[in-house]
Every structure is written in structure tokens, then in C-alpha cells.
């Protein structure tokens, strides 16, 4: 039933690189050079003590035709489940200014292209795997002393997936996608589904 609904309602699918110049928005995922980090999320509480969050950056390049787009919001699905609260599951940043997360995207349309980074915190890896990574990249910090909210910087994402096929496989196992909801002039809405390519 869900699948039928999908076909019914998402009439607009934009595939990578299939844009015409008149399109209101172009969305392209690019392989990010942002840092992957280990993050002590609240999710790995006492019952998940042997695992830890791997914060993976996903980067999109958006080219927005400001005269045609009134609003843009995104919905992050992991394994067909909407990440309901982006405070803990993911955060969105503007690549040009990464100090603070951003919420509504409209004020950033002036950056053209606008590169957004989505830091996804929903992936868990075992502490053993995390320790292997720390050792491999000669990072001296320990997982044991991490407090909730603490992070350890690893290496850039594009390097990590090249050198760690196992992590790439793990990421690919889960169906991740982002829905971009675009409000066009006069309130017309189109939804673009973008599957995450790791």
C-alpha cells in the first residue's frame, strides 16, 4: 500500500544530473570531505553500552532559483522511518559557516550554490570497531571517558569510505533517503526523493 502511495503522490522525482536550466531547484549529492566523528549520543545509553554513534556527513549541493522557490524543507528517512527529531538524529549545516546548525533553509538561498551538510547521528558502530578506527588513524582519545554530547574527530568522510570498506558496506545495508519538500510559487508543492549514495 505504501508503495502505491509513493507512486501516486510523488510525481516529481529528480534524478541526479537530469536537470534542465528552468528547474526551480537542482539537488546533487556530493562526496563530502567533512570530518566523520564519533559521538556519544543519548541513544547509546546503558542498554547499548557496547556501541557508539558514528556521525557521518552527507553533503548536498543545492542550486535554487530564488524567483521560483518559496520554501524548502527536508525529511530524513532511515529504513523507511522518519527521523522525528533532528536535534538528536541529525543536524543541518551550511558548509560556508559550520559554527551553528541551521533550521529553515530559506535564508540561505542567497548562497548559490548552497552546500548543506547533514550530520547524521543515527548510525551505531560497535565500540570495538570504533577502537580499531582510532588506532588506525593514530587518535589518542579514549571512548571510555566520553560524556554525553562529546565528540572525537576521525578523518574526512571521502577518505574513510575509501579505506574502510566494511563501514561502507554497513552504511549501504540501510536504506537512507532524504525527501526535499519544495514550495513553489503560488504554494504548489513538489517532493523530491533523494536516496543517499554512500
Amino acid at each position, binding site marked *: 500500500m*505504501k508503495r502505491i*502511495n*509513493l507512486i*501516486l*503522490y*510523488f510525481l516529481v522525482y529528480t534524478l541526479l544530473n537530469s536537470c534542465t536550466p528552468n528547474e526551480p531547484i537542482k539537488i546533487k549529492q556530493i562526496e563530502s570531505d567533512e570530518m566523520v566523528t564519533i559521538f556519544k549520543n*543519548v541513544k547509546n545509553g546503558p542498554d547499548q553500552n557496547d556501541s557508539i554513534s558514528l556521525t557521518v556527513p552527507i553533503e548536498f549541493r543545492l542550486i535554487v532559483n530564488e524567483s521560483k522557490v*518559496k*520554501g524548502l*524543507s527536508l*525529511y530524513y*528517512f532511515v529504513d*523507511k*522511518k*522518519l527521523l*522525528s*527529531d533532528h*536535534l*538528536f538524529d541529525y543536524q543541518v549545516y551550511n558548509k560556508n559557516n559550520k559554527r*551553528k*546548525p541551521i*533550521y*529553515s533553509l*530559506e535564508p540561505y538561498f542567497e548562497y548559490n550554490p548552497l552546500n548543506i551538510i547533514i550530520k547524521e547521528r543515527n548510525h551505531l558502530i560497535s565500540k570495538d570497531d570504533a577502537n580499531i578506527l582510532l588506532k588506525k588513524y593514530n587518535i589518542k582519545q579514549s571512548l571510555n571517558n566520553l560524556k*554525553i*554530547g562529546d565528540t572525537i574527530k576521525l578523518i574526512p568522510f571521502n577518505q574513510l569510505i575509501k579505506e574502510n570498506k566494511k563501514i561502507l558496506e554497513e552504511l549501504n545495508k540501510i536504506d537512507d533517503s532524504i*525527501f526535499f*519538500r519544495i*514550495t513553489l510559487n*503560488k*504554494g*504548489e*508543492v513538489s*517532493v523530491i526523493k533523494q536516496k543517499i549514495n554512500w
Partner: protein
Amino acid sequence: MTKTRYVGGNATYITRGVSREFANEIEINSNGPINYYAPEYTYGEPEARPIKEEPQKAFSGWWSPDYEGIRNIPEQDSNWPKAYLEETVYFQLNVSERIPVGTSITFQLWDKNTPFKGLTIFDNPKFDGNMVFKTVMVREVNGQHRITIELYLNPKWHIDIKKDERGSINSCLEFYWTWKYHNTYWKSNNNILDVYRSKTTLFIKPATNDRSYGLPEIYANNGSIILYAIDKLPDGEIKKFSMIKLRTITTFKFQADINKFKREIYNEAINLDTNTLESASYTIEEGASFFKTNKNSSQIYIDEDLIEVPIEARGKIAVKNFGVKLIKFAKQAAKIYGQIEILKEMKEMIPELSSNEKFNMPSLSTFVGFVPQLAVYFFGVEVIGWMVKGSLKEVDDVVEESLWADWQNAKARGLKDAQNFIQRPWAIENGFNNIIISNKMVNKLLKGDFKTLDELEKLREKLRIENYDEYQSTLVYNVFYISTYNKEVDKNVVLIDCIFINQ
């Protein structure tokens, strides 16, 4: 006026007395070092700028954000100070001392329509169809005679901003006043205030369409509807504040069902003795009457745990005199949300509530507060009206209506179902989403402290950074909202649909 002075060589400025400078901001630029030489340095609060004395003129005015007229309007466009609808501004007018304190003068508000300074015949005196007059008395401020006109920038005037758009590029109203004194007409068209559309894009969709109950729909996590009401005695005295949990047993199919249901639960009288709605067929799961006020009597906290509040002395009197305890939800509740004074009275009426330690320490509380009434008014439309967009075909309308009914059913089944519903393609296309917030934030939300969803999210991020652990543990309110395009302002606005209390 702008003044720039170029000096080829050195410039020296010598004053025998004190040299003072007043400005909105002061910038000093130097390519080399900046040196200060003095035996003593003092820093302090800025002094109010001296007011220009113009003895030959009877009036001199300016706009301010404060009644005292000390501060300047914080923003400016290229011409004038800049304000936004929904703000309150003040026009300050220093008057000649020959006009005695207590003299009352009537002012009329105008919107300047032409860029030509002297030309006023095309100017517009009507805002949302009405002329705005203010009658104000001359008062004394620091020995000077002054008039201060308070002006609430009514959000309904967005219609006039829209009208203005046709003729000119800048979409704002340009306000000035006219008045008559001693058979002479005066205009303040040298002190214009530019008024722009409200910055607010976050609105609360009230639970019912008739604008009488100002709160949004509030649910317990099992889908029970939580209603708040005030028990008001026939003589107008407020006896208690109540919360009732109500369970829906109907499955909605059409908008008409939903409307009927809401009319009943939010408008019908409820008999608290029998725990039944007077004319409806819904069962009340739990009913309890309790409230607590905190030290600041402008707030009432309603606890989630059901507590019976003994209202001893007064309670007895009340029962003797008035046997039937009826609660009219809508009107009384709305009055309370709008009138802080009643809340103060309430505290005095039932002092044991505010002095009893037991009731002053809410562990988990819901604030029943002020919904931004005007924000609600602006979008207080028939639910179906904004949901079914004009461009849709008839067949689609039916689909939309049944899905809208599904949304109501999902909420009544509880938080999990509501969360699942918003993941459906229809819901995403229609901008449904949710956000989990703490009790501190829900209080602010219901009081109308957030103008945009961004403001709410920024505060959330701030609280998270301050204390991750503590913040995480207070996330109890799951707020469902709908992002929808508003034609009037030509942008997306966010409507709070309902709040789930998840504990």
C-alpha cells in the same frame, strides 16, 4: 542630513567646557593606532539625548519603542525608522509649555502615499477599513510638556500593506499623524514610521474553529483529548480550574464529523458531578478539578497527575449556594487566557493554593497561558479551508478530506499512530512534521513568545548545549505542526496542529 568633512592635514578641536556627542552608534576608524590620554576613565549607561528645544514651534515629535521615549526604534530602512505589524510603538510629541498639562488632543493616523514631501491629498486614512483616532492628554516629563500616543500595529493592516504594494516598490505603510490645535492643523509628516509586515510565521491552530477556546488540541500519549476549563459561578466568581481527559470512541470519516465532535466537546456544557457532557455521546475517561498557581500569579500550572484540591471554606459556601456545577468551556476559558487580571483575582480568592507548599511545586506541569490571540485570529479559519487548496479538483478534495479525517483518527489512537501518520506521503506533501520540546519551551510557545519556528529551534539548541543531560530528560511535549503556504504573505507559515504530552 548627511555631513562629511575632509581635512587635508591635522584636525584639532578645542572646547572650553564639556564636549559631548550623542549618536545611535559611533564608529571610529584608524589605519594606525588609537590613543586615549586621560587621568581617569569612566564607563556607564548612556544618557538620554537632549531634546531639541524649539521654542518657536508648538510641536516636535519622534517615534519610540518605549513609553518613556528614551530609546530609538531599533531598525531603520533607507528613509525612516522601521517597525513591524504586531509591535507596539509610541509617538512622542513635545509640546509648547503654553499648552497646559491635561489638555486633550485628538490625533488621526495617516499612511503617506506619495514620495512628494508636501503633497498629502493622496494619503490614506483608512486601515482595514477604519480610520484610526487617538485622543491623548498632555503630560509632564522632566519639566517638559509632552504627548505620548501608544499605537498597536494591528496585524489586520497587512491588507493595506498589500494594497500599497500595487503602487510602489516598498511594501510598507508610512505612518504620520494629523491633529488640530487652536484652529490650526498640524502634521507630523516629517517624522514618518515605516511599518512592514509582521515577522511572525509561527501560529497556533486553535482546537476549535469558533475562536472561543484559544488552546491548540492537547492529547495524552494514549490519544485522550485533554481539555482545560474554568468553573465559574453564576455571579462571575471563578471557583476552579479543571482538566478533563476525554476519550473519542468515534472514527471520523468526514470533516462534518470532526466539526460536530469539536463543537460538542469544546462548546457544550459539562456536568462535573456526573462526568458527562450535557448533550454529547462521548465518554469522559477521567475528570478532575485542580489547579495551582505559582508565586508569579500570572501563571497557572495544571499538573498531569490528578489531584483533588480541597477548597475548604469557600468550597462549602459555593456548594451550598450553587448546587449545579456547570462548566462552560469555551467562553470562560478564552476570557482567562486573555485577561491576566482574572488570574490575579483567582490567587487572592483561594489563598491556600498559593501558600500551600504541596501545590506550589509542580513536578511536571502544563502551562495554560496566552495563545497569541491575533496570530490565531489571522489563521483562525475553517480547517478544511486551508487544507484543501483552491486549485485542487473535486475528486482530490474527497481524498484530502478522508485523509484529514484519518489524521484526526490517528491522533485519537495515540502518539505512535500520530507519528506514523506524518510519515505518509500525503502528510509529507502537506508539510506535516513534529518537534519534541521541553515544558519550558511549551510554556513559551503557548504564550506566543516564538515568532518563528527557527526561534524555537534556536532556543532548543541553546538549552541542549547548556545541559545535554538535563535537557534530554525534560523533552515531554511532542508538537505536531503543518508547514503551509500562505497566499497573503507569499511564504510558508507554520501552524501548530496539536501537542502530545508524552510521559
